[in-house]
């Protein structure tokens, strides 16, 4: 036990020292930049806190049902949070345990494998959860404000949060550990990885298809008592998220013995999970690590026929892009398709689209006007989905060149061409997803012609702008030396991209709100509803917003990448 603890503390100290050195070596400009991003982050968190405060204050004021609804909401938010942590931990643990750069050195050193595993487990828990915790924190702060709770409540929340996060990640880590050890052949492992994603996506679709929201709507229940029983019933009672919610509710209600009991459950379960994981690591980690060193052994022909891109280039003649740009596009496509990690994401996206459209179809809307209005507001939700996909695929596109970036940089290829090729690769799928979400929603809800044309045109424009914005910010904040894509997504640049993307979607809706109002006025029979000057002004606003949102990050990113001198 002593060598384990000694090595684990040594490994932890190295991380703390590296972080400290990173802070100490920051230049004046980096301090200014990071403080600006920090301030922006705090501002966004404050916005979320304000929103939650309004919601929770409203619920708290409801007689009888209010407190029940608040805790139901907290329980559902916690369940969602921990589900997201589990999914993140699956992908992050794969990189931290088996592909991290420092492993090559650490595995050779006389470091007990269990200590190394524990070190990487702490890393996985941190990277899987820090951003999600930042999103849930404003809700907890708002809850504390609504219920007039002091810092003791926050301390209680963090005390319960730590083991709950560790428990959530333990599942993902154990799955990855067993998978890597059980399937040392990379092709079998890849197949299992995709099948697991398919299984997760199917469960997600089936759960949604069961229409759980029927339970949330009081009108779907036969009796009021039935509804009250639903609100009082545990949300996923065996999940750590429910223990956390119960613990918090107990703290607020003054039932300290229940709080300590739930804390004991959480810490006990986390301790047990850690013990099981360490025991598993002792048996499986070495085997899994060894298997991970083998690459895919798929043999392909040496004599390669002209690529479809090259053939298309010949067809286009003088209108064709440069040979270098087409070659990079082919490289991008080939590398993307061969990386199984992307496949599992695509499976989940397909499930997300299905659930999205199913939810739209089940919306309880009565009038044709309301349906058309929802179709317009749907731009906001579809825009959010495109922004999230952009954070996962478009924003990291430049950074995904990785350490091979020198190949493109040393080649006779400008930064604009490189970025243009990234945009050309990311735009079609973004456009396709946007079109699928908006066109299918319009069809399902029976939107009128004006709203259908407006929303479809808007989402096409937004797909282009969001893609250009993603590539632009990706070039502005490149990270070529990261070990996994999540480090790119969860970087300061990813945060800035997401904040700007959401701001852009909000401004788009604001710019179109006026013409949409005039359209509904006309539909409801109001004479002279249309003011064409106002419509023109809205169109101009929309164009300016899109030009700024796409152009500014693009230009700044191009300049930054041209001047790039290393991470």
């Amino acid at each position, binding site marked *: 036990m002593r060598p384990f603890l000694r090595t684990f503390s040594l490994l932890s100290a190295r991380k703390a020292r590296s972080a400290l050195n990173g802070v100490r070596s920051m230049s004046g400009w980096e301090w200014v930049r990071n403080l600006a991003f920090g301030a922006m982050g705090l501002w966004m968190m404050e916005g979320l806190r304000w929103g939650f405060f309004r919601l929770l204050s409203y619920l708290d004021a409801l007689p009888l049902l209010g407190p029940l609804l608040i805790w139901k909401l907290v329980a559902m938010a916690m369940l969602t949070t921990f589900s997201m942590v589990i999914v993140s931990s699956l992908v992050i643990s794969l990189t931290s345990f088996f592909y991290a750069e420092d492993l090559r050195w650490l595995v050779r050193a006389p470091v007990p494998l269990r200590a190394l595993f524990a070190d990487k487990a702490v890393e996985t828990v941190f990277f899987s959860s820090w951003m999600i915790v930042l999103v849930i924190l404003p809700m907890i702060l708002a809850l504390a404000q609504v219920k007039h709770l002091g810092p003791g409540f926050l301390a209680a929340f963090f005390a319960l949060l730590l083991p709950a996060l560790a428990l959530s990640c333990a599942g993902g880590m154990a799955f990855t550990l067993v998978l890597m050890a059980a399937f040392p052949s990379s092709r079998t492992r890849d197949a299992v990885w995709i099948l697991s994603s398919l299984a997760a996506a199917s469960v997600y679709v089936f759960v949604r298809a069961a229409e759980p929201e029927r339970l949330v709507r009081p009108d779907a229940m036969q009796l009021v008592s039935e509804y009250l029983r639903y609100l009082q019933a545990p949300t996923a009672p065996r999940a750590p998220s429910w223990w956390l919610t119960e613990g918090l509710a107990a703290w607020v209600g003054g039932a300290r013995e229940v709080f300590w009991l739930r804390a004991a459950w959480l810490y006990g379960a986390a301790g047990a999970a850690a013990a099981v994981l360490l025991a598993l690591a002792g048996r499986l980690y070495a085997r899994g690590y060894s298997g991970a060193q083998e*690459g895919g052994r798929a043999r392909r*022909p040496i004599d390669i026929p002209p690529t479809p891109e090259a053939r298309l280039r010949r067809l286009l003649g003088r209108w064709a892009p440069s*040979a*270098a740009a087409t070659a990079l596009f082919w490289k991008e496509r080939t590398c993307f398709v061969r990386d199984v990690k992307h496949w599992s994401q695509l499976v989940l996206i397909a499930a997300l689209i299905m659930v999205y459209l199913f939810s739209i179809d089940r919306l309880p809307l009565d009038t044709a006007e309301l349906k058309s209005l929802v179709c317009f507001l749907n731009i906001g939700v579809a825009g959010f989905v495109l922004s999230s996909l952009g954070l996962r695929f478009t924003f990291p596109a430049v950074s995904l060149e990785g350490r091979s970036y020198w190949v493109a940089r040393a080649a006779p290829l400008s930064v604009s061409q490189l970025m243009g090729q990234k945009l050309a690769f990311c735009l079609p799928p973004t456009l396709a997803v946007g079109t699928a979400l908006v066109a299918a929603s319009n069809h399902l809800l029976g939107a009128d012609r004006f709203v259908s044309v407006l929303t479809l045109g808007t989402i096409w424009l937004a797909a282009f702008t969001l893609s250009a914005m993603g590539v632009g910010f990706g070039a502005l904040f490149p990270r070529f030396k990261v070990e996994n894509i999540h480090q790119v997504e969860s970087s300061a640049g990813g945060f800035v991209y997401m904040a700007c993307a959401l701001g852009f979607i909000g401004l788009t809706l604001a710019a179109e709100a006026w013409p949409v109002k005039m359209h509904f006025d006309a539909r409801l029979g109001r004479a002279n509803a249309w003011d064409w000057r106002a419509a023109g002004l809205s169109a101009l606003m929309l164009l300016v917003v899109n030009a700024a949102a796409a152009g500014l990050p693009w230009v700044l990113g191009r300049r930054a990448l041209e001047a790039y001198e290393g991470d």
Partner: protein
Amino acid sequence: MIEVSGLTKRFGTYTAVSDLSLRVEPGRIYGFLGPNGAGKTTTVKMLTGLLRPSAGTARICGFDVASDTLEAKRRLGLVPDEPFVYPKLTGAEFLRLTGDLYEVPYEVQRRRVPELLEMFELTGFGGELLETYSHGMRQKVVLASVILHEPKALILDEPLVGLDPKSARMAKEIFRTMAARGAAIFMCTHVLEIAERICDRIGIILGGRLVAEGTLAELRSRSGPAAQGRSLEEIFLELTGGQEYAALLKNL
């Protein structure tokens, strides 16, 4: 031709390369030597457009790397110190990608790619993903990719690291042949024996400054009459202060 004039690179207050001037004529091999951290890789990055100089110019075949970047890069080949290549491409595909990036005609690629793979004894691995390659195999693929587009100027940063003796010898022959065909070659290396054998001129950089330059005979004569007959290693250690290692060994 490679021409460097007053090339300087500063990172904040730290000057990595200071006022570097040199010239590599077509058909010549220039050996660029220096201890670790002397500024060799920074120089290579400025020559290839990966870093912008703080002052001075670097020209490739008459084109300024900073202002005529694309024209300069069209004529340039780079073998970096670490052969990072796209792991999800095969060796043959990487060569094809490089061929397309440098606009090598498809018919030439179709003929040359198998030839180059065979030359580097990679035919059996050419269809496998680069993530399965060893360091030396990746280095061979990068070398092959440079030969494929036949650059007029070649920048090599430790090109022989990781190569087996046979491949290293072949690489040396390749460099000589490319120089004989008119390429200007700038090579950073720590292997002084190679520099001694194949380089026409040698430059030694220390603390970012070029402290000595010339043919091996010129370097010997500059070190005084006692230097006649001494190896490049001895001259290098004398110039860079490396002979003080005996005092340091007491810590062993």
